[in-house]
């Protein structure tokens, strides 16, 4: 969608520029435009911090965050914590995502499976999974299991719901065509049902990625001895606001990266869909 929007904007721009008689620099204007606001904010923030209007206890100057970034990078802590957090996120996504995908497909195809599990899943879904943190700590302590459990649980439901919906809404006409042309069982699933459900599964995946990071941040801040969340929490105890802000920025960057990977995958797998064609 976005790729398409940008393309239209590009086509439209030269005309609107002429219309208002403003001569903007032509090279990459439309690429730079989104960054004007953040850069201006950063500059203002840096300026206000250096003249002492913003206390470094409340908000560190951007330069201080930059310095903290380099320090943490040099000591090796940052990369280690990022690797730990990334590994947890991926493990939770794999475990929760596969369970959600399998249940969604099974319930979409088999009436019996749906009748057996759907109501229970819908009931479990209404419990905010973060509300289970006290119980999870009692069960697993603050080890890796607690993080894996919470992230998997958070990721499971969006993947399940969207997969189920996708499988259920595969075009009936195509299914009938498949049967008339002799497809059954696995062939029908591979050639018609799965590709038909894929757009919806991707929606579930991208939604799950958001929940994955959210769960990880919360569980790492409350109960962890490593990871970005732990880094932020430790920095809070020593009043190191620069490191706290740095960890927020890293979460944002990791979240964006995950979404970009999911989008790239989506564009590749759904290239047959006119929406994703250039």
């Amino acid at each position: 969608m976005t790729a398409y929007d940008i393309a239209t904007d590009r086509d439209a721009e030269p005309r609107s520029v002429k219309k208002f008689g403003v001569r903007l620099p032509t090279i990459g204007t439309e690429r730079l435009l989104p960054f004007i606001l953040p850069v201006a904010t950063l500059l203002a923030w840096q300026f206000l911090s250096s003249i002492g209007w913003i206390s470094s206890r409340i908000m560190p100057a951007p330069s201080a965050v930059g310095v903290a970034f380099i320090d943490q990078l040099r000591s090796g802590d940052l990369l280690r914590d990022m690797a730990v957090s990334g590994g947890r996120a991926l493990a939770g996504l794999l475990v929760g995502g596969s369970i959600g995908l399998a249940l969604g497909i099974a319930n979409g195809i088999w009436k019996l499976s749906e009748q057996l599990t759907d109501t229970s899943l819908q009931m479990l879904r209404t419990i905010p999974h973060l509300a289970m943190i006290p119980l999870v700590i009692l069960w697993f302590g603050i080890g890796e299991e607690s993080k894996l459990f919470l992230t998997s649980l958070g990721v499971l439901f969006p993947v399940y719901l969207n997969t189920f919906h996708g499988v259920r809404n595969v075009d009936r006409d195509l299914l009938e065509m498949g049967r008339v042309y002799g497809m059954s069982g696995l062939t029908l699933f591979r050639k018609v049902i799965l590709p038909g459900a894929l757009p919806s599964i991707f929606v579930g995946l991208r939604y799950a990625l958001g929940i994955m990071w959210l769960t990880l941040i919360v569980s790492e801040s409350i109960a962890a001895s490593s990871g970005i969340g732990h880094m932020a929490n430790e920095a809070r105890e020593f009043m190191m606001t620069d490191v706290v802000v740095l960890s927020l920025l890293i979460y944002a960057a990791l979240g964006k990266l995950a979404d970009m990977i999911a989008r790239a995958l989506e564009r590749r797998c759904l290239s047959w869909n006119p929406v994703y064609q250039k």
Partner: protein
Amino acid sequence: MTLQAQTISNPATIAGPLAIRLRDVTKRFGDNSVLRGIDLDVPAGQFLAIVGKSGCGKSTLLRLLVGLDAQSSGSIDFSDADGRQVAANARIVFQEPRLLPWASVLDNVVVGLGEGVEARQTQRDALAALDEVQLSEKASDWPSVLSGGQRQRVALARALVSKPSLLVLDEPLGALDALTRITMQQLVSRVKQTLGFTAVLVTHDVSEAVHLADRVIVLDQGRIALDLDVTTAHPRKHGDPALAVLERRLLDAILGDS
């Protein structure tokens, strides 16, 4: 052999057109009788058109022929040129193209070959079928870039690629514009002459029926109301006076008593 719902035979086993024999075929949905004792013999290689108003039972009859539904009572038999009873090797072209949007044009045609055919042979057959409908240059495109008429031609290629002994057409040209429809009619007529399968066309377009078919039956309230042979030689011209007379008779039979 009586055709059960969901039994679709292996296309590779039978060659040559099939004869169809229906005896006292009825179909009820609850209390509603859609077909009431249809007796019909379709000789091998005939092009039969079934016309009638909406709800006359023509689509139901067609679904019975390809095994998408089972009749409530009566029998439907298929036999080959030697008179032996065989399973139907039927292929269907729907009103909508029903192409897989995530498969290339060529792969959509390959669907028509079913499972278990060697890959290289499959590609060659599919390309040949696309060539038959003059779309071989679109083989690697997505269906979404094709026009409505082109999509329906791909659907026709998918139906023809397995060299079916029975081709069933469910208002296949109904959604196309008038000019595309005429070219498609010529195409269907041409492949019918070349490949020689038995064809059953369901349509509400009487002019299309007399243009394509060797025989037209009118279905009314689940019964055969009129059975007409069309003897004009192929290729037929639109506006041929002999066909116009037949068209008039068919229209009278369809609309007459209402």
